[in-house]
């Protein structure tokens, strides 16, 4: 099959879209898009010749005629089933990448708090986002370039100083349409002021089993003394492609915690990056990936200690079954100024079969001299003796393996305070393993 959706196709789509824009084409924000499409033209899509994409070949993407989708096929019932039971949530629903007002619900919040879809903000208050979009997630690869060039739909969350957000904010993406292959490019921006706290869930779901492509970029500005937690739940069908770039920048005394839970997707590439840009910050990256069949999940992370006295903790765990493939590349940079850095990184994977495989590369680049850094990678199988021990007490082989895998995966979720949400995650893991 010919490469129909190649670089040239998207550039020509950009020109077409631009031509139908009227007034908006001269807006300040559109300039951001134009710069991005130029970069896209220079960069093209990444190939395995790019060091960072060495283990993840995206050429399959060009086989599918990706197109936009409609909101028609998804009902309220479909979406209600994806709410997190018992959790106090504000829900922003994007169907095939487009905000759905009728399926969304945001609670009454204190003044100044903005939980809005990007399209509205660009129309009505673009100044809210102009200083931020594109500032943090540098365009260093074709996917980020493409997302920026077409940025129009997504979620904007702005929390002013000292504001208290009521409830979790759940950005619920549901993608799919019978007989089509849908492309969505959500662009999210989260900006928090000083002394605030917000918990955000970013979930991705499919309807149907068609192969779709989600190319998402999320930029997060974490204000002084603020706590921002993001849980990314990837639950799409096992044919879909998912490219996700998340970039957080932290101010003094802040804590940013990101959970990346990958259960679905046929080809998934997550880039989760933190810039510790001020003293006394803590950045936490936790990840769990459970793969089966021929799933390919590539987790790339970067923690950049630019300033002194910061702490970072990273723990990623994977369980790979059948002939699935995992990739983990965790970079930690400690810059010259970043004295008294504490950086801990660990990646552990269990391969359940001899056909499953993982490529793992921890990378530490340390330019300061008074630091504590450690990293570890451990790859193994389920402990046969432990399996036998459980079986010798009457626990069946399958349940024994599930018990051990759950025990392995569990400590990723240990720090989650909200019991309801913790239980929801346990349930997702249980269902995936079952």
């Amino acid at each position: 099959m010919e490469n129909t959706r190649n670089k040239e196709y998207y550039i020509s789509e950009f020109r077409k879209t631009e031509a139908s824009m009227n007034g908006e084409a001269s807006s300040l924000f559109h300039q951001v898009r134009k710069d991005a499409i130029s970069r896209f033209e220079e960069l093209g899509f990444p190939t395995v010749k790019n060091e960072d994409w060495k283990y993840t070949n995206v050429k399959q993407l060009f086989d599918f005629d990706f197109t936009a989708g409609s909101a028609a096929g998804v009902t309220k019932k479909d979406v209600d089933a994806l709410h997190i039971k018992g959790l106090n949530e504000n829900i922003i629903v994007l169907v095939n990448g487009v905000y759905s007002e009728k399926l969304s619900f945001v609670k009454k919040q204190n003044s100044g708090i903005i939980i809005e879809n990007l399209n509205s903000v660009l129309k009505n208050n673009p100044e809210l986002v102009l200083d931020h979009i594109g500032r943090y997630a540098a365009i260093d690869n074709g996917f980020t370039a493409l997302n920026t060039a077409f940025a129009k739909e997504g979620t904007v969350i702005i929390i002013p100083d000292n504001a208290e957000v009521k409830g979790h904010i759940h950005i619920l993406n549901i993608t799919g349409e019978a007989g089509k292959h849908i492309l969505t490019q959500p662009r999210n921006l989260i900006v928090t002021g000083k002394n605030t706290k917000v918990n955000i869930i970013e979930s991705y779901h499919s309807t149907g089993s068609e192969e779709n492509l989600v190319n998402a970029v999320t930029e997060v500005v974490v204000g002084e003394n603020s706590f921002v937690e993001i849980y990314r739940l990837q639950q799409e069908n096992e044919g879909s492609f998912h490219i996700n770039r998340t970039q957080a920048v932290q101010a003094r005394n802040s804590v940013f915690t990101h959970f990346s839970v990958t259960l679905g997707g046929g080809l998934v590439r997550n880039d989760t990056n933190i810039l510790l840009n001020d003293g006394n910050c803590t950045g936490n990256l936790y990840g769990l990936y459970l793969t089966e069949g021929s799933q390919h999940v590539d987790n790339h992370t970067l923690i950049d200690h630019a300033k002194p006295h910061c702490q970072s903790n990273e723990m990623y765990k994977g369980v790979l079954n059948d002939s699935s493939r995992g990739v983990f590349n965790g970079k930690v940079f400690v810059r010259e100024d970043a004295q008294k850095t504490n950086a801990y990184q660990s990646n552990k994977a269990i391969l359940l079969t001899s056909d499953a495989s993982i490529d793992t590369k921890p990378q530490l680049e340390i330019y300061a001299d008074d630091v504590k850094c450690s990293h570890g990678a451990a790859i193994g199988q389920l402990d046969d003796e432990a399996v036998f021990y459980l079986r010798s007490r009457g626990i069946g082989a399958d349940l024994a393996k599930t018990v051990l895998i759950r025990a392995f995966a569990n400590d990723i979720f240990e720090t989650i305070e909200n019991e309801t949400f913790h239980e929801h995650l346990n349930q997702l893991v249980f269902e995936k393993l079952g």
Partner: protein
Amino acid sequence: MLTVKDLFVKVESADGGKEILKGINLQVNAGEVHAIMGPNGSGKSTLANVIAGKDGYEVTGGSVTMDGMDLLDMSPEERAREGVFLAFQYPVEIPGVSNATFLKTALNEIRKHKGLEELDAMNFLKFMREKMKVVGIDEKLINRPVNQGFSGGEKKRNEIFQLQMLQPKLAVLDETDSGLDIDALKIVSNGVNLFRGKDNAVVVVTHYQRLLDYIVPDFVHVLVNGRIVKSGGKELALELEEKGYDWVINPEAETAAV
């Protein structure tokens, strides 16, 4: 209850495997305690592991049945559900799985198999606390991961605690006394003695006679080089203690020396 008939067992290995058990015959009836003693390498643990269903062994002849059921044809979990319990010589640590979760899951699988209702969390905890008192295990350990951070002796005590919790029909204790000081030995023996009764049976595998002062056997068998070379009552254990294993292997040598 347990009938081992002409059992030949090979330990699997890359170069074809080595025959360890060379024709074992053993009959254990309900209400009885049998001790299997023997020098290192005689095949004591092999026998225990084959009864429990551990991988890595090939039965090349004979049979092992319990109450008429062919054990060798059953998976380890099926054997456990029918009432076989092996107290391991080297119990493994299971990080992330608490003693409570482990035992509740096991107990309920066994109860399900027997057609009994599963114990709910509250009743299970009550039952667990009772048994912890019997074996002298600190309540703090309920939520600790199985065997993690336990000393050798504590692990052995945990095995006997599980014995008390699961109430099997046939308990096989594989060198339960190794690594125990006298106090731990007494506690572990007490747990076994409280367990033994007319409806169950115990097979104690041990190298030393000392344990048998506390868990007094009805029958003693001496296993040497994969064969039971001598059987007798509890006095046999004392004779072995006095004369050593050589006496059993070469009884003629002794008479010749006289």
